[in-house]
């Protein structure tokens, strides 16, 4: 698809398992489309230039910074956000449980993005060392925790998944 700067076009994605069709201007980012059009508010605006990771979502299973991806490029994709990790009654999944137990969220603003980065990390089933976890988290900034509880949580979750 070749989005034009001037045309508004309807884009359809599956967002956390729910089909959503909304208009997306040619320059509309996936982040704005999710937040302002689809009403999915857990991906956050932190920097707008793909550095901080607060807007990390999975696009067809691959982590992406939604603030630097155009919505129109995501036609027909499956989008997963942190809110999509919870069960139907709001139950936390094992990764989220580990974040909860390990005090992985303080202000919580980076948390949805952290969770999606970690989800992508855990998907291949490979067990990582703490240093490897830290390396793969480098695109997700946190200013509150000092990262350690987040690394702890991911380490816990990969152990539980084994």
């Amino acid at each position: 698809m070749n989005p034009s700067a001037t045309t508004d076009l309807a884009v359809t994605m599956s967002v956390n398992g729910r089909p959503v069709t909304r208009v997306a201007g040619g320059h509309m980012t996936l982040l704005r489309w999710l937040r302002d059009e689809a009403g999915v508010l857990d991906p956050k605006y932190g920097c707008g230039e793909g550095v901080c990771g607060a807007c990390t979502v999975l696009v067809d299973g691959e982590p992406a910074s939604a603030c630097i991806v155009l919505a129109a490029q995501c036609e027909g994709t499956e989008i997963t956000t942190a809110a999509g990790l919870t069960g139907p009654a709001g139950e936390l999944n094992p990764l989220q449980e580990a974040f909860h137990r390990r005090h992985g969220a303080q202000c919580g603003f980076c948390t949805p993005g952290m969770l999606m980065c970690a989800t992508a990390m855990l998907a291949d089933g490979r067990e990582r060392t703490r240093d490897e976890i830290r390396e793969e988290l480098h695109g997700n900034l946190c200013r509150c925790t000092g990262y350690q509880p987040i690394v702890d949580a991911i380490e816990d979750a990969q152990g539980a998944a084994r």
Partner: protein
Amino acid sequence: MNSEIRGSKVDELRIVGKPLARHDAAEKIAGSTRYAGDLAYEGMLHARLVRAQVPSARITRRDTVAARALPGVIAVLLGEDVPNNEISVDVPGQTIAVGALKARMQILATERIRFHGEPIALVIAEHEDALAAACEAVEVEYEDLPVIADPDTALADGACAVHESGNLLAEWDIDRGDVDGAFAQADVIIEGEYRTQFVDHAYLEPEAGVSWLDDDGVLNLRVATQVVEHYRDIAKILGVPDSKVRVIAPYVGGGFGGKEDMTVEPYLALATTHTRRPVRMQWTRNESLLARAKRHRNTMRYRTAAASDGTILAQDIEIISDAGAYAYLSALVLLYSSVHACGPYRTPSARIRAKTAYTNNPPTSAFRGFGGMQVVLGYESQMDELAKRLNLDPGEIRKKNALQRGDRLPVGQEIITEVQLAQTIDAVRERAGDKPAPRRPRTAVGRAIASNIQSYGRLVWLNDSAAAWIGFQMDGSLTVRCGVPDIGGGQASSLAQISSEVLGVDMDRIAVHFGDSALNPLAGTTTATRQLLMSGNATYEAAVLLRDQILAAVATETGQPVEALSLTPDGVKGPDQTTPVPAALQICRRRNVPVEALGTFFGPKGKEVTRELDGERLFPDFTFGTHLADVEVDLDTGELKVLRYIASHDVGRAINPLSVEGQIAGAAVQGLGQALLEEIVVQDGVNLTGGFFQYLIPTAMDVPDIETIVLESGEGLGPFGARGIGEPPIGPPLAVISSAIADAVGARPTTLPITPERVLECVRRGAGGGPT
């Protein structure tokens, strides 16, 4: 084991002291917490500021015609549209010829631009997409004025005045003992000059909020803020009664002092008042980095006189800070620098001269550590150099000079609680064991410790107070209402924990309503490491009042002695019977006993400061701690790796150990960012740091695990003997890294951030055997 609590036994605490997940954690992790920028209203408008593109100028023309004609643009407001465009703040202890010094600030600049990014016009539009073009279309022309780029230039004779009152914003003097005499008799004198940089808070949530008018005409703002009491400032700007403005603070995505001053508030208020419609404003990261107040850049010149056994005799200290273009809290930040300047050590004689000057740089104001943290680089570098010069152990020399209960700071304030500084020094060193050997050729490993002192609670002459209300529901669950903003440190959750402890209600049956200036009792600012002390004590007081009135009612009803009754999760327990809580509440109703209580806590009091600080209690109390770091330096590239980091503080009592460890680890990493990576680069007043590509905060890769050792002396002034811990751990990283490099390569970096280039310079100086 990475974290450890060494507590004195508290008799049978049930909830306090337990490492509980916070009551707000599950929602944050489920992604369902709604932050300030997440709220949307039907028919909501959007607003953005037109900001100055030059640092110092006279405005010669502003034209909004073209912008207002653009589709979707509702209004463009200028300073003339603001009812009270200038607000002024008292600068404490500072006078000019005609009386107390008042520092002026403007909401929208009309005539004079004083910093790059200063707001000039407010654009309001139907859609966010219309904002960029509309801002672009506002025409502003300038006549450039000289740029005051640093305090030295600002204070030079004949310098162009940034403000009419002159460029010297504030100065503080502390004089104690016979400084010159002590230097004349000293066995050893250490000297050094240390420089810190402009630093940004870089919380992940940029400034944001939504405003609307209620059905009864009250202006509501739901904003990311540390201070709901700004409703009064907003009312002043609008010229309306205080009662007509309400500020709601939802969970905040990080504060660190950057959301202590107003950010989006005046503009949201103006936009909704003007349009009568809901408005949202969200600053971009670029705006946040460009124009929101930074940490002060300090130059600190230290001279220390000591005896040959390492006893400190005197210090002579000069501090110059860059106040930027507007006053904000610069005078108070400098006061903190002055009072903390000699560190956690007995300093019998001291001369401290501190000045802060206006420049055309970004404004500077509150930031975690609030002036008390930059000076750690000064006093701990001096202490380390002194130990080296005298060939004394760095831990022993600190213990020898450590403040103890009954000692006085140079400002005259007596230390009234037990100081466990020596225990923190021993704790980190015992944990660390032997210094590791270099792992690779052409690397060097260094180890250092750094200790600090940092106040908690506001300056006593500000007459601080906080209130909290607790009410039982008739089913025995509990509602806590307290105005405290929760900025991510667990401020609200700890109130639930304190209430649970006293009233015997399980945490999951407690709801905390916080951060609302109209509907909750006001608890003051979430700043100055004061909320556990203030709202914590207020909540404790409310809980005790409520408990005691319920126990008294049940005692009368059941004929049991009141002193034999206790409130437990099972109900009111007595020698004869246990009355379930709902039944006890029914007894209260029958007997006209309230099932709610308001607690108000008043902080310690003191006299207002004068410019010559002398003999007064300025702060409620202080928190002490010590950090240890092992660093590895690449001798060829200057690259530095922090191999190990251990932090120990006496927190008095850890209400929630997980929150305490989180504060220590988070502050240590934020401090490491300032030590090694971060700088807002300003060149001739032009802020060159426009995004997170330029402003590098630590990533998970850049820092090691932070090992914490939490000491519990039970000596703090907060509930259950707690001290504040939000700010104290951010200071030591600056010095511990600098000293560890000096240990590794033989020369000390004295300017932050310590980039690889600066490390290499130390490698060269160290190898040359030059001055360290």
